[in-house]
């Protein structure tokens, strides 16, 4: 495994280029171009805010802001996993004709998702001031939480990317699955609503991450460190497991697709 990681490191330039390509060519040809990176989550935000603040009358102050600080990390997770799932099959030509460590592909997808998240925060910070959310030293936890989410996202992305080569249904099943996952994560509702069942919700590794983002950026309080530590360890184990599965399945990629 050590050798593999050394090799992966020597392909970091490819990773950088793939991320750049992903970010630059996704909206190529569209009139608004790169702006879509911002417009897309904003439009989602407007839809959800209309539904849950105006129609469903969720009793939360500054609902759009409440939603936005968790919606962005969720979109990062969801898009990365969904796009990664098809990335090996989608890059058929490359996989069949050129040698490179195949994990570069899902890692690039997850990393460009991370970049989009960071660009998204460019909008979040002005909003924090507009809505007078008090910023405490707990904001320093933000990079750590993003890192934990990145590790978790990598773990799922790498796992689904290699499994999808053998079971192509995964891509389609995952669409529905992600929708359920979205509603089972406290993104659109506050944790108070699910307090009686909270321990079940903690099985979902995205729950502590969502709660932590909201604690820091909406409530201005410090996050629950224990649950984050557990998530971090779980994410790391998942990543190691996924990486090993990927490396094992990787050998037959060129023949399977």
């Amino acid at each position, binding site marked *: 495994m050590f050798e593999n990681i050394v090799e992966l490191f*020597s*392909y*970091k*330039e*490819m990773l*950088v*280029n*793939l991320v750049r*390509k992903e970010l*630059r*060519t996704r909206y*190529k*040809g569209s009139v608004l171009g790169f702006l879509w990176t911002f417009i897309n989550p904003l439009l989602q935000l407007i839809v959800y805010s209309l539904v849950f603040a105006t129609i469903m009358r969720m009793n939360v102050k500054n609902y759009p802001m409440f939603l936005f600080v968790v919606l962005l990390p969720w979109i990062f997770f969801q898009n990365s996993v969904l796009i990664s799932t098809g990335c090996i099959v989608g890059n058929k*030509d*490359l*996989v*069949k*004709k*050129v*040698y*490179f460590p195949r994990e570069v592909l899902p890692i690039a997808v997850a990393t460009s998702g991370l970049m989009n998240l960071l660009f998204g925060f460019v909008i979040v910070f002005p909003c924090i001031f507009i809505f007078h959310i008090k910023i405490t030293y707990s904001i320093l936890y933000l990079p750590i939480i993003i890192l934990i989410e990145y590790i978790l996202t990598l773990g799922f992305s790498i796992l689904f990317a290699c499994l999808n080569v*053998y*079971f*192509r*249904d*995964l891509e389609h*099943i995952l669409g529905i699955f992600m929708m359920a996952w979205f509603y089972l994560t406290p993104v659109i509702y506050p944790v108070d609503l699910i307090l009686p069942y909270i321990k079940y919700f903690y099985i979902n590794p995205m729950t502590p991450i969502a709660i932590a983002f909201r604690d820091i950026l909406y409530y201005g309080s410090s996050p629950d460190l224990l649950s984050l530590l557990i998530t971090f360890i779980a994410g790391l184990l998942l990543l190691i497991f996924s990486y090993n599965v990927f490396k094992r399945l990787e*050998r*037959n990629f*060129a*023949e399977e697709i």
Partner: protein
Amino acid sequence: MEIISVKDVCKKYRIFFDKGSTLKERLLFRNRNSYEERVILKDINLSIEKGETIGLIGENGCGKSTLLKLMTKIIYPDTGSLIIRGKVSSLLELGAGFHPDMTGRENIYMNASIFGLSKAQIDMKIKSIIDFSELQDHIDNPVRTYSSGMYMRLAFSIAINVQAEILLIDEILAVGDTNFQKKCYNKLKELKKEKVTIILVSHDLGSVERLCNKVVWLNEGKIQEEGTAKKIINSYLQFMNEKQAINVESSISEQNKNQEKSSEKEILYNEAGEKIDRWGEQEIQILGVNMLDDKKNVKHHFNCGDGATINIEYKKNKDEENYVFGVGIQNNDGNSCFGVNTSIDGIEIKSIKSTGNVEFVIEELPFLEGAYFIDVAVHSVDGRAYDYAKKVYQFNVITAVKAEGIVNIKHEWIIN
């Protein structure tokens, strides 16, 4: 130093007849997962030294590309081991990973990084890549605006400039116009001098012979022969010629079988089943014409320089005063290549048996590659035909001699 070592490598492909790749199909139709195992490579042993240029030749489907893919680690062997010491750059397909919307320059960075180069290394190489591709004016345009030639030139330039220690090339030297091809060859020769190990898969035996110091000939997944370029290419050509001959032979004998019944008494049809041109009163009747090789086997295929015998069987229906037997050979275009008869050669025949045969013995067939037809005739000295049949027998010449024309003139060059 041994840079590539292949030991007892076997590779099978599973050919699925109707494979379900979705979960539903896998669960519902388990029995559909029937497959056939096809052995692509069998017990391959190969040792390649640093700086060697190796040519891989063989028929289509013999496993050349599979062997290259194994060397790049795109696929892995079922059994055996493959050890590669050094950085591999493979040119299995040009322009894999190009993005049409990115400019030529961006694609250089993208593509070279796929080969594992760092940004600093690419910065160093970029000038020579652009120069080599001759795309200076277009390098900042999106690749989708390129012509296919420009596209290939760019891709080739990147792959050949990435400073690999081992370069694997699969049948892609036919890039660009003649000048660019020449440049590619020169570049390969330069790399050869720099001790880059090159493995070349090609059907262009001429360029293999010019570039490679060693050639490996794969046949049906096994190494048939390896050795110096000239020797192996010759025996490969010989093998391919013979194989073609067997095909010709079997297709012709198939046709003959269909005609056997009708042609027992008279030859009215040629090999192709066409009615042949034939005239004369048949005082002497030609019963059959065959061409035999040195071992007296009927054959339709000969190599240039082989010995051959044209055998004419006849039957006498009426006594005549004199007899002349003639043989003519014409090529596919209908040009007469050679024609002679017993009278021209000064042989007088006053009497013949009631049935018999005449043999026309050719010491060395001088013809170059192509299809030829035999005309035979029996006539009187004054030219009245008893039986004259045109194009009664077809034979093919297959040869490694590449000279042009009809006959191979024995020659040598003296350059002063």
